[in-house]
């Protein structure tokens, strides 16, 4: 039964710690203390997915996570994910199929795609739409993004 003093976790593969309040929002801490500005703030209400990160491999909206809840977990943001071979495949597919316009939703979309493909390496279109259903995009109309994920699943055969 510990009063939380120092919150320890792994961020993009490196040991990290936080000494502020356990009630602080993961979204703010990632952006302000750890300079992970690829984590975007769209709504702060769990509605848009722009702030999505992976916590122990699961997609989570970092605006709905208090720092005390990340103690002992491993967090991956787009800054860490971009170093992976899987990212390279998604990156190419998103670029080729014009799935990026302003780019604000893209980090969250990419991590939602990663979570989806980890669970369903050969997703149906319905599974893709469900997997991305918590991520809003104001620009593309979604079809290009769905196509990009479909294409990444094919091009990245064996990676997921």
């Amino acid at each position: 039964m510990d009063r939380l003093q120092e919150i320890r976790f792994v961020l993009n593969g490196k040991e990290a710690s936080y000494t502020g309040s356990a009630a602080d929002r993961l979204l703010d801490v990632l952006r302000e203390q750890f300079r992970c500005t690829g984590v975007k703030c769209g709504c702060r209400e769990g509605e848009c997915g722009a702030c999505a990160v992976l916590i122990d491999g699961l997609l989570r909206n970092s605006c709905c996570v208090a720092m005390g809840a990340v103690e002992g977990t491993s967090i991956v943001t787009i800054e860490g994910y971009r170093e992976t071979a899987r990212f390279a495949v998604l990156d190419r597919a998103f670029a080729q199929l014009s799935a990026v316009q302003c780019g604000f939703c893209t980090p969250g979309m990419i991590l939602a795609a990663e979570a989806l493909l980890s669970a369903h390496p050969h997703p149906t279109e319905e599974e893709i739409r469900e997997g991305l259903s918590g991520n809003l995009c104001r620009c593309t109309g979604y079809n290009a993004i769905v196509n990009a994920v479909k294409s990444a699943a094919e091009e990245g055969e064996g990676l997921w």
Partner: protein
Amino acid sequence: MVNTSGGYSAFSLQEALELRASQDVIPYAGGTDLMVGKHRDADYLFLSRVPELRQITEDAGYVRIGAAVTFSEALASPLVPQLMKEAVSGIAAPAIRNAGTFGGNLANGSPKADSVLVEVASDAKLRLVSRSGERTMDVDGFCLGRGRTALRSDELIAEVLMPKQSPDCCFYEKVGGRSALAISRVSFAGIFDTQDGRISNIAAAFGAVADTVLRFRQIEAMLIGRTIEEARALRDSYVAAYAEQLVLTRGRVSAEYRRAVCLNLLNAFLSQCGL
């Protein structure tokens, strides 16, 4: 600098209950209700690493879902009843289902809570625990109104007890604005069962239309013990009884619209039951 504000982490139920009783803390499970809106200047009691609250188990009578089990975990469990899975799979989107929990859905006290709707329809019970003991109560009695529950300030919800049943027919429908992230506008869960040709259970629960999930046992009683033939003859007066009882609070969508949707869903349920 070490700032010690903001929270406690518990690693066993006993620790959590000690803290709950002795400190001014807010239980925190998935954070999907607590973190929305304004920042609270309170100490949280983080529950996600309390193993006793994270399990799904079964005994002779019940499937027992730990209060800190997430919706995604429930969807992956072979023990969780299908009707509950149907409702939970319609909650928001993956990132919310990976965080949101059964205990949080209950304690938040919203009449829109999708898992609570199924619990009310299923005659589920809750096990509430505190340092000084525990009690088991009906979900119906737990929810008192918007944001109000029977939870005491020294208590935690430990688990939801879903009666094991294999009814003849289950029905679930949520009519929302858009599919993903739609907090229910109107939701409905129905359970129908017969024994020796007579109706033994016909539970109908309505979500998101009043201060709590609604269920009218006195109307259900009209059909309990009846044969299918008798129930068919009573169907119109049965639906009329609901029409009279469904006096809805005004909300974002007009009360008349929501009442019409409720009755349509009730009718669809009755038809599916063969009535």
